[in-house]
């Protein structure tokens, strides 16, 4: 077996991507838990943790560039390294969504929650679970799982719609709560976007394994356009 050290380097990249993913998963769950508990100290810790997420992303990026420059990767190795550039950028953005929820929490200051959070933690659980399994599929290059996970994005979207409708009824009933409703809506929107980025990771996993780019976004353009 040749290329022992290259294989070790690739494994280190894989491990670091998994670590980065775990940090993002953790930040997402903690951000929503802190919001639910109105725990401002925990929210500040999430802001600090995001700096570590960014630092790890740049460290992986630098490893990728060194490997490309020194190993001249081909075929699967090349697809892997090019895709990891994309995946770590997705993870870093997902970390920003978690940070965004922590910032909302801090901005709310002393204001109480408009309502007890039920669907938002469920949404966060679902997102974290999808991300976790997407990264496992990435590690194992499991194409079947990578193709299946984006289908679950509909559940996240459904929860988002539900939260949206619920908050609208609060606003209609009492327009004075607009600001407090908006905070929660922003948090929900962050989670909805986070789940979309899980789909991008799954697309990359399939590309690494097969060389084919498959669009996996389950939302069609028609769904996104306003009704005629």
């Amino acid at each position: 077996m040749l290329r022992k050290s290259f294989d070790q380097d690739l494994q280190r990249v894989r491990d670091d991507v998994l670590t980065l993913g775990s940090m993002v998963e953790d930040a997402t769950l903690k951000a929503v838990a802190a919001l639910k508990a109105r725990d401002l100290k925990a929210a500040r810790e999430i802001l600090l943790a995001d700096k570590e997420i960014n630092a790890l992303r740049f460290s992986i990026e630098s490893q990728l560039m060194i490997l490309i420059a020194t190993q001249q990767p081909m075929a699967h190795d090349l697809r892997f390294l090019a895709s990891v550039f994309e995946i770590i950028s997705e993870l870093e953005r997902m970390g920003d969504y978690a940070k965004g929820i922590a910032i909302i929490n801090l901005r709310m200051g002393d204001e109480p929650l408009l309502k007890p959070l039920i669907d938002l933690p469920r949404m966060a659980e679902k997102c974290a679970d999808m991300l976790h399994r997407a990264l496992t599929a990435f590690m194992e290059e499991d194409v079947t799982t990578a193709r299946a996970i984006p289908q679950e994005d509909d559940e996240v979207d459904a929860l988002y719609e539900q939260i949206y409708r619920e908050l609208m009824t609060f606003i209609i009933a009492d327009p004075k709560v607009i600001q407090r409703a908006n905070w929660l809506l922003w948090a929900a929107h962050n989670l909805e976007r986070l789940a979309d980025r899980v789909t991008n990771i799954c697309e990359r996993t399939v590309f690494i394994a097969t060389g084919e780019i498959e669009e996996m976004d389950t939302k069609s353009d028609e769904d996104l356009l306003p009704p005629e």
Partner: protein
Amino acid sequence: MEQPLAIEARNLNIYYGDFHAVRDVNLPVYKNKITAIIGPSGCGKSTVLRSFNRMNDLVPGARVEGEVRYRGKNIYDPDVDPVEVRRRIGMVFQKPNPFPKSIYENVAWGARINGYQGDMDELVETSLRAAALWDEVKDKLGQSGLSLSGGQQQRLCIARAIAVRPDIILMDEPASALDPIATLKIEDLMRDLAEQYTIIVVTHNMQQAARVSHYTAFFNLGPQRAGMLEEFGPTEKIFTMPEKKATEDYITGRFG
């Protein structure tokens, strides 16, 4: 969108005595393209290259079956003159091998023995320019070809090959004896030459194949150590998404 062919191996089998060196090769070579032949040592790359201008005729015990189609004819047909084949299909070797003669004579020699009637000075200049060597040697054409650096000698050999106006240039590891800068010069030159000529290059250097060629043929050792064509395709596809696992394993350094 099929490209025009310059030359093509069809069911090519090559033997050295009892040894079946190359088995059932079908390889299209497209006009004005650079085709790289890569593969592990002993897989028949150079043997196949040499079969494209009947250089194997000069190897004792070598025998060729199948066809090499060039301009609608099998170059191994009995009525084909191998000397004429080699004029149309030139060759550049691994180690630069200029004649121990002047730079001028190195280039003029092939044309002269082919009875070239035109302006020899002009032919020498055009060939040296085409080989990107003119500016470096124009003031010392009378000096020995052996006085040049390795990279210059190799470009002199390329000038010598193109002076007889071939269609196809075969290159057997043309840069393996050169330093990286001289190597890049040869690679640039190959790209320029491909506008006029068809080039087939055997190389051990995969990055070179990836950089310089339009098509790549990956040869591998088959049963009984016979060389065989494992995969052929556009270079960008071979190096990003090969179809065969053996190709993937070779280009990513898992064997060879």
